[in-house]
């Protein structure tokens, strides 16, 4: 019973690739935004905070539609990116990764921001008296101490990206082999007669991948926390 058809297998691989890409690419930006929100006071901070969290409260279809009118091939940002860097989003797996990244971004930022805020800033002062400038203090003290939060954020981001449906299907549609993720494939299978078995197989795959991600993140976070706090 548990032989995935090539079509299902493609959807699984595509989902993993999209979710991984979304997570890895948004990580540096997520760390930067989390740091800004946790540590800096600047004009427009509330606005930035709001924009970052918007995908969490907007209907996913709205987010997908906004992406479509900004990042489509004839849209302002989309055509600029295509002409300048040759990056195309619309109806490609890269577009799915963009949609997943945008949808998961608030979760990523939130987890990392909380861990930045929990850090004892006096340790950063100590680093500066030992000769570390702000950049090296961040790299050698702040970031390692925030690591459990960063890992938690990455897992949340990955899980959210893996399950994203509404924004993705609105922005890049549901093209087998290109933009059809596990979620989209399950949806498709439930819409056709006799698709139940295939849908169920993909459901099991989704549950297993999510569980593995959660257990792995728990393990990493526990290890990091053990290292830092001793006994």
């Amino acid at each position, binding site marked *: 019973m548990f032989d995935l058809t090539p079509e299902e297998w493609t959807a699984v691989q595509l989902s993993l690739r999209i979710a991984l890409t979304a997570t890895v690419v948004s990580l540096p930006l997520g760390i930067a935004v989390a740091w800004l929100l946790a540590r800096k006071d600047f004009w427009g901070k509330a606005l930035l905070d709001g924009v970052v969290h918007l995908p969490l409260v907007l209907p996913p279809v709205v987010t997908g539609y906004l992406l479509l009118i900004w990042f489509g091939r004839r849209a302002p940002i989309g055509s600029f990116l295509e002409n300048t860097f040759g990056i195309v989003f619309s109806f490609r797996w890269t577009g799915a990764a963009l949609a997943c990244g945008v949808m998961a971004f608030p979760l990523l930022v939130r987890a990392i921001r909380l861990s930045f805020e929990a850090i004892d800033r006096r340790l950063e*002062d100590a*680093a500066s008296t*030992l000769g570390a400038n702000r950049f090296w203090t961040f790299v050698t003290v702040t970031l390692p101490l925030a690591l459990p939060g960063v890992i938690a954020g990455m897992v949340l981001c990955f899980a959210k990206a893996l399950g994203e449906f509404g924004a993705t299907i609105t922005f890049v549609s549901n093209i087998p082999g290109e933009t059809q993720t596990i979620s989209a494939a399950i949806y498709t299978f439930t819409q056709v007669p006799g698709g139940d078995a295939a849908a169920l197989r993909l459901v099991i795959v989704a549950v297993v991948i999510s569980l593995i991600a959660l257990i792995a993140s728990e393990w990493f976070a526990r290890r990091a926390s053990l290292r830092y*706090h*001793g006994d």
Partner: protein
Amino acid sequence: MTPKSGNGISDQIMRQPGMLAVDVEKRLGEVLIDVKFETAGGATALFGPSGAGKTSIVNMIAGLVRPDRGRIMLDDEVLFDSAARIDLPPHRRRLGYVFQEGRLFPHLSVQQNLDYGRWIGGLAPDAAEHARIVELLDIGALLKRRPGHLSGGERQRVAIGRALLTKPRLLLLDEPLASLDRARKLEILPYLARLRDEAKVPMIYVSHQAGEILRLASQVVRIEDGRVLAVGGLELLDAEPAH
């Protein structure tokens, strides 16, 4: 007892490296810190009751707190001068700072904590100096441990070693014994005395305990309510607070 005032230390004691000239003002909420004093190098104590502003003064010397106005000089170098718009960041002041709570990096081993300053400064390893300080503070057995597994006294010894290994021009010690019980204090004091006598590191020792200062310092700057009451020798320790 003759209460002394003014900055007459330099006449009494021969000048040594690590001379500090502080003249700063800083408002922190309700409290105004307005201090002016000079040290003659060697071991100087900032002495006064809790809440007198001693830690804030040390933080200004270290560059962690920015004075509202004034000037801080170490030997011939200006660390801060509001009029000349000079404010050397902490990482370029080359001072060592031992905090009340140690502040060891919890994600690094004792060895890595000790090496941090040298590593971040891109300096070549100095095995002899390392061995000397490890021996002086008796922390050789702790090198592989993590700060979470150390006792309070061990932690402070490592913190002192970490600050010393950056080869500071001046060592700032802010109540390094305050968080320790009596037995731990007695454990650390001899190491600090050795530091002064053998390593000859100029230091500013902050404390509200006359006993500690008596063993470690030769000059005293008496601080109360954010002001300098007197600058002088150890006789200031038992002078009545003047008002």
